[in-house]
């Protein structure tokens, strides 16, 4: 056919000279930026993980591994090659004293000698190194910890069949199917302070401690825990979470803000698993979190359910590091324990 159309030859020869693809350069300056993941919890030392980041080209290479290999190898790779253990890291408290943060080889992070206090404005500065430019990040520890009060609960034992019929539970898979678990419905009050926007993360952790069988660590006492819970309260509704993650339900997020309850005393009802062993307890924490941590956790929750759809808008992991990546979050919390 091409013989009949010499135009093809002309066009082809000209376009051969004009290669039609090119490599798009990535901004090389981003390779010199630190990644900082730091958390300030009221009453505890500030801790920070500091690492390098990579351009997309290195990351994509991991995609050729299967899930297990990817998880194992990427973590190893991260620890061996990206984690920085010799950075000069300073923590400045309320614009005044600066504390040097030391690297803890066990925790693989930098720890301050200073204990964070409610209302503190904390700033982390990472000094430049060869190949990395300076980065800094600021957070403020929430001034209050929402107190959980008027706690009430009911326990429904051994109702697996009923749960499978979804009589009570939106997502019955939240509960293991070994016949040993049950459902705990917990209600409690918390008071949201009026005024500026407050951000929360609710943690409901069901725990137990049992004398393990030979299958588990040779008969030692073993503690187990699960943080998954569910509530149909609209406070937890997040329209972006169109799919569940693990046993977290779709449209459910345990990270929320107070825009619909500003300044009110609010009663929440949640459903959690409750194990039957004798030494069981449930921890309830209504954590006040910083704005940056709120957006970070929200983006992580969205990211982990995202699919590899070329039409989708990519997901940005929110952060608050200047000239770098990551987040410096803060939280203030009180723990309420239901022993049973």
């Amino acid at each position, binding site marked *: 056919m091409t013989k009949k159309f010499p*135009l093809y030859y002309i*066009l082809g020869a000209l376009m051969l000279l004009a290669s*039609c693809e090119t490599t798009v350069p990535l901004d090389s300056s981003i390779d010199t930026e630190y990644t900082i993941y730091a958390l300030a919890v009221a009453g505890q030392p500030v801790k920070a993980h500091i690492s390098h980041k990579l351009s997309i080209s290195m990351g994509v290479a991991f995609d050729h591994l299967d899930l297990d290999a990817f998880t194992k190898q990427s973590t190893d790779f991260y620890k061996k090659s990206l984690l920085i253990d010799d950075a000069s890291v300073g923590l400045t408290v309320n614009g005044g004293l600066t504390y040097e943060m030391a690297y803890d080889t066990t925790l693989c*992070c930098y720890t301050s000698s200073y204990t964070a206090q409610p209302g503190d404005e904390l700033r982390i500065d990472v000094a430049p190194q060869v190949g990395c430019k300076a980065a800094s990040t600021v957070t403020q520890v929430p001034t209050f910890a929402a107190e959980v009060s008027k706690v009430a609960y009911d326990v429904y034992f051994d109702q697996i069949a009923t749960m499978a019929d979804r009589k009570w539970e939106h997502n019955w898979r939240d509960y293991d199917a070994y016949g040993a678990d049950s459902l705990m419905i917990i209600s409690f009050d918390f008071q949201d302070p009026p005024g500026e926007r407050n951000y929360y993360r609710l943690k409901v952790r069901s725990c137990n401690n049992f004398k393990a069988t030979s299958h588990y660590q040779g008969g030692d006492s073993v503690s187990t825990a699960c*943080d998954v819970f569910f509530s149909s309260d609209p406070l937890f509704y997040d329209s972006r979470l169109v799919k569940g993650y*693990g046993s977290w339900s779709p449209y459910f997020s345990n990270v929320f803000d107070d825009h619909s309850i500003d300044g009110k005393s609010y009663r929440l009802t949640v459903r959690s698993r409750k194990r039957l062993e004798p030494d069981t307890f449930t921890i309830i924490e209504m954590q006040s979190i910083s704005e940056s941590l709120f957006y970070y956790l929200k983006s992580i929750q969205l990211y982990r359910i995202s699919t590899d759809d070329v039409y*989708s808008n*990519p997901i940005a992991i929110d952060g608050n590091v200047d000239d770098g990546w990551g987040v410096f979050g803060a939280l203030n*919390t009180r723990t309420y324990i239901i022993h049973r």
Partner: protein
Amino acid sequence: MRQLALRFIVMVLAMLPTHIVQAAERGDSTSLLNRGVKLDSIVVYGAHTDFGVTSVQMSAITLSKSQIQSVPVFMGEPDVLKTLQKFPGVQSSNDGAAGIFVRGGDYDQNYITLDGSALYNAEHLKGYVSAINPDVVQSINFYRGGFPARYGSRLSSVVDVGIKTGDFHNYHGLLSVGTLSARAQIEGPIFKGKTSFNLAGRVSYFGLIARPVLKKFYDKPDALQPYENMRYYDINAKVVHQFNDRHRLSGVFYYGKDVDDNTPSSSTNEYSTLGDESVPFDQQSAHKEKRQSAMSNNWHNLVSSLYWTARFNDKIWLNTNLSFSQYKYRLTYENTYLNDVKDNFRPYYHYEESSVMRYNNDISDLALTADAKFSLHPRHLLRGGIKLSTQRLTPATIVDKDSYLSQFNGPLNYSKTEQMPIPLYLEDGDSLHYKSGKGNDVNSIALYIEDDYDISTHFKANYGVRIAAYGASGKGYFSFEPRVSISYMPSDRTAIKASYTRMAQGIHRLMSGNLVMPSDIWVPITNKIPLMTSDMWGCAFNYKMPGDINVAIEGYYKTIKNVLEYQNGASFTMSETRWQDIVAVGDGRAFGAELLVERRFGNTTGWLSYTWSKSLRKFDREGNVLNSGKEFYSAADRRNNFSLNITHHFTLSRKVGLDLTGSWSYQTGRRGTIPYAYLFGYNLREYEYLGQHGFEQYWDVYAGKDISGLLTTDFGSFTGSPLPIYSFKTRNDFVLPSTHHLDIQCVVSLKSRLGESSFGLSLYNVYNRKNVSNIYVGHEGSKIVLKGLCPFPFMPSLFVSHKF
């Protein structure tokens, strides 16, 4: 001499009756000829509407057919929208694309009309050619600011395309063959002096020419797959019946269709490590995977209208238009997947899946408009009108998915294992048939009144108001839109202008910011998605230099409310949820400065245009937060946009002419979003059930011996395994390289008894700048890199046309 000639024309027109002058203003030479006024020895250059020094209107241009045809563009195809892109305030979405983005607004904010009726998708060939056939264009008035009250329903621009009325007395036509398409146009009388027609059509053969050539020379032929089988055609028709000098009935019809059927692609992946001693026994396996996929992407546009133009006397005119527009978009994916696995514990595993996903987007728009003009006072020209319209928008997702699994877990060879698997045969099937989306109606009524007021010799004003009411999903929206433009002319060569306009818009086009595979879909306002509005302030300085060179410098500041964007991670392919739940509503602002230097008359004509602009978005409302509520650049943000176009006409002989055009354009690169960074993040510790892995459920549990570990609040730090993350810092923070290209076009015209023949050579991107249109993840040796697709390298093209 030319000045004298122009004065002569003005004098002649001044002596003619008003309706003939109006016909001349419209460029309707046939009306003049009908009355024995033969002016064919004098060429009337330039604008039909003057938006220069003497006009109160700012931020507007009028584009003539000759300007459109002089600009060298893709494969020599004259293109209305690409010509507009070379003017201030207008930019393309990506290199070579015809879609326009005006003053920081999105694509949907442009009201493109054919004789007053809406055209929803003004693009062919995935946007590389505009859907407006230049052969039928009479003139184009383009407004990017200072909108008179008679225009509404979009925020950023109005592209008012006038379709040429056919000759009432003689037959004319045009045949043209180019590298991209063939075109034909014919016009003439149906009933001499009473009824005329103008009929034109285009058909492309891009795939036929380009496919075999492009396929050979691209590094990754797969990347070209979406482009290699594209074709389009369109038809324009206009019939006009003149009852008498005062009444005229016109019918306009446009139909355009784009077809893009991709060749199905398939891949097979087969490997085995069974019996390979170097692989641990429990990891030995044999895999066979087969995938097949096909995609088709088609759309069509229909515009039809019937309008009656009446001049009741020399002071009152009325134009009544009944129009129906339709846009249908179809995107279909078909996939099949087969997977067979064998290993030492699972001798048989077979999985097959087939799916068809259809994404449809339909718009139907029925409108009735009446526009009246009153010239009751020498200093006032009053206009008033009403528009009733009903639009139905139907974005729909249809998914059919079937899967079948059969497997046998049984004793194969467990002599090397300590634990014998339980023999198990499993068979499972799943079927998903899903349809989401329904028709959403938007009904609206708009009333306007405006006045062109010559206050004094030095001052002019155009002021008015447009009032619109919208009803959608049971909720009503009201829009009050004041418009003011004023002009001060200290001399007959200078004008200083200022304007304020408020605009409202009842539909949105959702655009993905994904640079790899951008997508878009039209959606209406609803009870949850509010009316989009904008306020724009502008000022201008116009100066008419000696030598007929017009200079215009403008500045603007625009705010936009209720602009719509996809949420992070969202796309129109998400079948799990309604589109309203995956979008965010926010605000925007845009500002910039523009320069236009233009010469319309003479042998050497052309223009220089430069725009500096910024366009930003902010989404910080409850439940609509993007980018942590911080402001970010919109996808339409382009800092610099420069264009220089010069055409010189050489008269080689009385019958032979040559037009040589050079055009150089520069644009800052397109913005978009791509996760270009790979890093490791953390989550706060959460013990959670993570689903099934193989046949066992497992929990992410704390299994420490010390129970106090569970009581410590999140251990005071981010813990757990680091999460590999692909991310970016800010939405639309990835900027593609700047684009620029020099294009040259040479057209030789020969006049003969049979008409006028033109032979053209167009050289696009003469110095072969690799301008990136889209990107994908590719390879360079063993390294993974971002590859840019440059569909428009140096492209020579030839075209021949004949007018008769």
